[in-house]
């Protein structure tokens, strides 16, 4: 079981959290709204979960649920005035929202711990290990070290969260609501003439994106056991955007792929340390030039599916 090293599992866990963040920007984008506020909504989820569990000893799942819902509700509050804006103006306003929120986190010392952040957040893996240990379970019975078991459970919980998220939004995109989203993205006036209430669906998509960011944030807090305002800067907002630009934003698999790939690349390239971000940047430039719609688009998926059918295993 040597290969199950906590470092690899941690990289894989960040891949999954980033994949959920990728889906969060995709959902809002699927109605044609570019939100760069998802780092901000992520911080709402992360801080809510962190504070509930450290100060009020709320069970982790309840804290994650509360963090997600609070982020989703904030999404409604931001989404309604955001209706007046579109394109880059919306992007700038939501980026501003994220930065304002971060300033609040830094300055509201008594609640958030200021720039230092919140430490000693119960870590999912440790909590599960302690719970299982009370019932006489030992990771050794699976041939695992304690730290391997902890990293593995975190990974599995995140995997479950990611799979549920992707299935949820994949199904949504193929339903009546998903068709309404796509219609709004493609032509707002034609969509409203076709009987689609634009305001309702734009706010719905915006708050779904916010809720997902909050969900990712809450999972992040309980995976790393430490959050600070530095985790939710505009770098994070841009990183989330890059997942969608690189992977593609026309199909949910685009940002999921983008998030997974772009999380692994810098880690895989550690051996050439100094040059790895040059390569990362080069990769982005190449994709933007040669595949402006992103690596994954519906046409590519159709081709893959067809070739899969023609060459039966």
């Amino acid at each position: 079981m040597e290969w199950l090293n906590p470092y690899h599992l941690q990289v894989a866990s960040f891949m999954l959290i980033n994949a959920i963040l990728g889906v969060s920007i995709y959902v809002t984008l699927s109605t044609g709204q570019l939100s760069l506020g998802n780092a901000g909504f992520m911080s709402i989820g992360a801080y809510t979960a962190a504070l509930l569990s450290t100060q009020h000893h709320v069970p982790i799942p309840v804290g994650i649920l509360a963090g997600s819902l609070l982020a989703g509700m904030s999404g409604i509050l931001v989404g309604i005035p955001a209706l007046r804006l579109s394109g880059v103006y919306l992007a700038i306003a939501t980026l501003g929202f994220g930065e304002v929120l971060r300033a609040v986190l830094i300055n509201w010392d008594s609640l958030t711990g200021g720039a230092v952040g919140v430490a000693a957040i119960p870590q999912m893996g440790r909590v599960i290990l302690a719970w299982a240990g009370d019932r006489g379970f030992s990771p050794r019975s699976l041939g695992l070290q304690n730290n391997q078991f902890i990293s593995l459970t975190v990974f599995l919980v995140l995997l479950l969260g990611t799979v549920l998220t992707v299935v949820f939004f994949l199904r949504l995109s193929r339903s009546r609501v998903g068709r309404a989203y796509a219609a709004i993205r493609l032509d707002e006036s034609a969509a409203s003439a076709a009987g689609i209430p634009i305001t309702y669906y734009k706010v719905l998509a915006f708050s779904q994106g916010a809720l997902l960011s909050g969900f990712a944030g809450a999972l992040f807090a309980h995976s790393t056991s430490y959050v600070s305002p530095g985790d939710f800067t505009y770098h994070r907002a841009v990183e989330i955007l890059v997942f969608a630009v690189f992977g593609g934003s026309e199909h949910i698999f685009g940002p999921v792929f983008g998030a997974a790939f772009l999380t692994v690349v810098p880690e895989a390239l550690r051996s050439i340390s100094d040059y790895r971000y040059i390569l990362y940047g080069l990769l982005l430039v190449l994709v933007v030039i040669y595949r402006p719609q992103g690596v994954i688009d519906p046409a590519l998926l159709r081709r893959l599916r067809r070739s899969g059918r023609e060459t039966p295993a």
Partner: protein
Amino acid sequence: MSSLLSLRKVGKSFGGLSALSGITFDVRPGEIVGVIGPNGAGKTTLFNVVTSVFPPTAGEVAFDGERISGLPPHAITRRGITRTFQNIRLFSSMTLEENVMVGRHCRTGAGVWRGVLRTPGQRREERGIRGKTRELLDLVGLSGVDRERTAGSLPYGHQRRLEIARALAAEPRLLLLDEPVAGMNDAETQDVFGLIKRVQSLGVTILLIEHDMSLVMKACDRLVVINFGRKIAEGTPEEVRDDPQVIEAYLGAAEGDADA
């Protein structure tokens, strides 16, 4: 006889520019009414006011006896008025089928949870949407085209028909067609004429903007003529054709009048 759509002194101005003023007329159930007039007369503005793309600045629009001016566009669609656009507005990267399915939106109800959980009711509804879509594609003469093709890849004439199918998907009682045969040859125009008559026979009332006079004369029960944002004539195609004001609007004043 009661009217389905009635406009009372409807006006629309953009800033100081008056695009429509004092427009009053009625459309009775089952009719095909043509709206004609020179370019820039305000015909499309009239459609935009009826469908609430923007509200009128004066007067009111009533549908089936109830005031509709001021309602949001999707609510107008829900009440039973749908339209096509002069410059076709399809969802070009969606498939043929999906375009029509979007049109079913206001007659169906599955929300987020039912869509994600795929409840039996939701699956039944989706089957219904697909069934209706096939029926409509058949009605507009697109049943032979691959339903998986994207709307943007269709030839022009097919795009016009697809837009009509999408508009019909919402089960309108009143259909507004904005130049449905613009840019078509005689044979295609003839086909669309047939389609308009078929739609009428399904009980849909039609308000039609069109420049093709042979089509207008043949298809319409009554005509409303607009020039410079005002109604200048209304009546049967024959009455309108012989109206001196209409002739003047289209052909300019006779020399004798110009001297006067």
